[in-house]
């Protein structure tokens, strides 16, 4: 008899809430982060509405400041950082390496509970009055001057941080210990490589964020002088600690997306990936170099000139491995057999938007240019191109790629492509005008602004509403597919990779027998295929 699939293997509430099955935990994360995504999106919507006119009209300055904090905190800590690793990584990683679960299944569940506990504190902080420090918590504003719920919010982020650390440990142990026989490091799918690099950052970087927030709390609660100069502290120390984590955190967001794209492109170009070794190696190079560039957030902070020079140089160096990836993906398309299905459109969109985001980073890494564009809308546009254009496109691409595996159902490819195009257009209309605004000099976190900036702000808000619709469409057709979608076979995309060798949805134990691996990944031969 065929084993029950993981969705039907137990239907009590406790079979979900106490599950140690990595696939169910992945789904728990999927629901949780989707919730946070819409909270953060709601804050963004109100902000964009407020910015329709130069003078404040919708909310008050204080509320606006709380909105951008809410937007930043939820999107960064409760959506982007867990997005691909905790949802797709959790679900797909063991399947990809032929394992029946994570190395530490119970710790995996604990990660989700920690994430939810952190989310609970963060939400409480928002509901009980909000926080107005921005997601960056710069001292001494956050440690002395803000009259808002800084500590509750910090507690939430600290707890969620432990969720990241445990997830990272789990991934590293799983990748080292649970690979199927024959699955050597040089045969690992690139998504696994990118999760490995991401996990290194989780484990090495997150504790520093924890420390910096604990120090903020100590200064706030007990007046222990760490950052406040009036108590003998140093406000720049906070920025150093904060960015030591929060710059690598950008790579936490983008590396997994790069991994997803590296899976999608060979599948829909029906061609083995170009430069496997260079793509895998560049993930590690990004993870390591990413730890040496934090000071580029501080060129005009009062940091020494020489520190600025070194951080600028390293920031240019970290651009190189990112470029290497882009060029290898494009070379993969050469002589491929390209099918523009939904995941592929997201993946190609990712390359375009990530390229713009990455290249505009060159302007910010240049010291003399950064002195002008730092803390303006230019940087807002730049990092949204990376974190939304890049990370979210990659996440949605991955969701669409593995949806049939996760649910056993096919969604409407037509609506999938429509949503990808709407997201792409809406995104560019939202954020491209912000590059212009930034170079014109509009600072970020501005509740009102000089009237000459209005036209560009209106364009941006118009784009945001299109983008919002683009994000809602998948909710509809993906939900629809759960009931009405055609059943997917084990391998609807005719993809290589172990996750496609088992049933969709997979049984609880993933594989009926342990798979054996005798070749590298992406054995596509340019053949014509008919997808399910």
């Amino acid at each position, binding site marked *: 008899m065929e084993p029950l699939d993981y969705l039907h293997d137990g239907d009590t509430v406790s079979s979900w809430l106490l599950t140690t099955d990595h696939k169910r935990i992945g789904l728990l994360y999927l629901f949780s982060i989707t919730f946070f995504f819409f909270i953060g999106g709601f804050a963004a919507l109100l902000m964009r509405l407020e910015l329709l006119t130069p003078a404040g009209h919708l909310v008050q300055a204080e509320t606006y400041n709380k909105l951008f904090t809410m937007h930043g905190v939820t999107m960064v800590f409760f959506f982007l950082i867990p997005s691909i690793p905790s949802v797709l990584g959790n679900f797909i990683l063991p399947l990809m390496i032929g394992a029946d679960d994570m190395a530490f299944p119970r710790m995996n569940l604990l990660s989700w509970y920690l994430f939810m506990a952190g989310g609970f504190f963060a939400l409480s902080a928002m509901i009980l009055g909000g926080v107005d420090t921005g997601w960056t918590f710069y001292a001494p504003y956050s440690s002395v001057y803000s009259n808002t719920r800084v500590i509750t919010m910090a507690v939430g982020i600290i707890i969620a941080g432990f969720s990241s650390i445990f997830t990272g440990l789990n991934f590293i142990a799983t990748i080292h210990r649970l690979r199927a026989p024959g699955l050597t490091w040089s045969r690992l799918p690139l998504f696994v490589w990118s999760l490995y690099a991401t996990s290194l950052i989780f484990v090495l970087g997150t504790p520093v964020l924890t420390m910096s927030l604990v120090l903020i709390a100590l200064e706030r609660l007990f007046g222990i002088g760490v950052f406040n100069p009036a108590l003998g502290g140093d406000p720049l120390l906070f920025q150093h600690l904060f960015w030591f984590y929060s710059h690598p955190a950008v790579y936490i967001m983008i590396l997994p997306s790069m991994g997803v794209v590296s899976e999608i492109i060979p599948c829909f170009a029906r061609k083995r990936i170009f430069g496997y070794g260079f793509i895998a190696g560049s993930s590690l190079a990004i993870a390591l170099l990413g730890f040496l560039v934090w000071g580029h957030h501080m060129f005009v902070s009062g940091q020494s000139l020489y520190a600025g020079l070194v951080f600028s140089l390293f920031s240019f160096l970290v651009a190189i491995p990112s470029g290497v990836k882009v060029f290898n993906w494009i070379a993969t398309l050469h002589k491929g057999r390209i099918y523009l299905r939904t995941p592929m459109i997201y993946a190609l969109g990712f390359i375009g938007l990530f390229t713009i985001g990455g290249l505009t980073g060159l*302007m910010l890494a240049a010291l*003399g240019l950064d002195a002008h564009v730092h803390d303006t809308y230019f940087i807002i546009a730049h990092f949204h191109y990376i974190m939304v254009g890049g990370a979210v496109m990659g996440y949605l691409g991955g969701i669409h790629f593995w949806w049939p595996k996760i649910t056993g159902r096919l969604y409407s490819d037509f609506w999938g492509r429509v949503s990808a195009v709407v997201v792409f257009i809406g995104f560019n209309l939202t954020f491209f005008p912000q590059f212009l605004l930034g170079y014109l000099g509009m600072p970020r*976190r501005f509740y009102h602004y000089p009237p000459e900036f209005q036209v560009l702000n209106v364009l941006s808000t118009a784009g945001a509403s299109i983008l919002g619709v683009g994000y809602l469409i998948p909710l509809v057709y993906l939900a629809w597919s759960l009931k009405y979608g055609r059943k997917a076979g084990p391998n609807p995309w005719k993809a290589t990779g172990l996750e496609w060798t088992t049933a969709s949805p997979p049984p609880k134990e993933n594989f009926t027998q342990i798979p054996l691996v005798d070749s590298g990944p992406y054995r596509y031969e340019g053949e014509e295929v008919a997808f399910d």
Partner: protein
Amino acid sequence: MTLPLFPVAASTLAPRVDALMLYVLGIVLTFIVLVGGFIFFFALKYHHGSRADRSSPVYFSLPLELAWTVIPLVLTLSIFFWGAELFIAMREPPADALEVYVVGRQWMWDIQHAEGRREVDALHLPVGRPVKLLMTSADVIHSFFVPAFRVKQDVLPGRYTTMWFQASKPGRYHLFCSQYCGTSHAAMGGWVTALSPADYQRWLDGASAGGVADSASGETMAESGARLFHRLNCAACHRDGASGAGPALAGVFGRAVQLEGGGTVLADESYLRESILRPNAKIVKGWPPRMPTYEGQVDEAQLQQLVAYLKSLKGA
């Protein structure tokens, strides 16, 4: 409605920033066109239905990998050096710069000119002369940003940071606070007015042309500082010659001060400020620590007056 796409350039540095911007923009656009072009070209040419030649596909090429590592590396390094050179120029004020003292506080800019004029949320300056700002904050971190001049610098509590610029054409330009500083962050700013040298002199002399007149208007900052120096009884110890209980201060600014326990410190503005507020942070060699702190007795603007006074004391 107006739709500006490029900001006015009104300082000597601005065209240099714009030139670098255009250089990087050229590189950026080239790569965007290349990447986007190849994606569209391949997506069409190798679309699954097409009969393009797909024989002997390549999966690896060391020359290609090296090319797209080395070429971007060379290009980015050229941006690095250009950006660094420009930044160093931004950091080094010319020696003949006018000195203006800035205190940022929630949510206003308090500005004093060495010549004595004081203003709030406004900065008047002459065209064609470098102006150096010596800045500090009375509370949280702020940032002094003039887009038309293409420069900004964070303003921190507890220390001085400096920036300089030279306006190149008369006009009114936005002054923003670009580092988030609390509720009215967006309202913290005003106008920088660049005047011809003659107009600037008239402005300095005029008592009520827009600036908030200091109670001691008519005095230079050094003179205000001198009055404070005597009011606080600093001269009781810091007498000329070696007769006082503290070191004589003539010519102290810019000197290398020998410290107790070895080492020296350059007596710059930050050191003078620290020595007034926390005299025991660095102890001058040969002078036992007996100076009391003046923390709480002088505010940041007064500290700047004292610093201006100390700077005006020429060495013997």
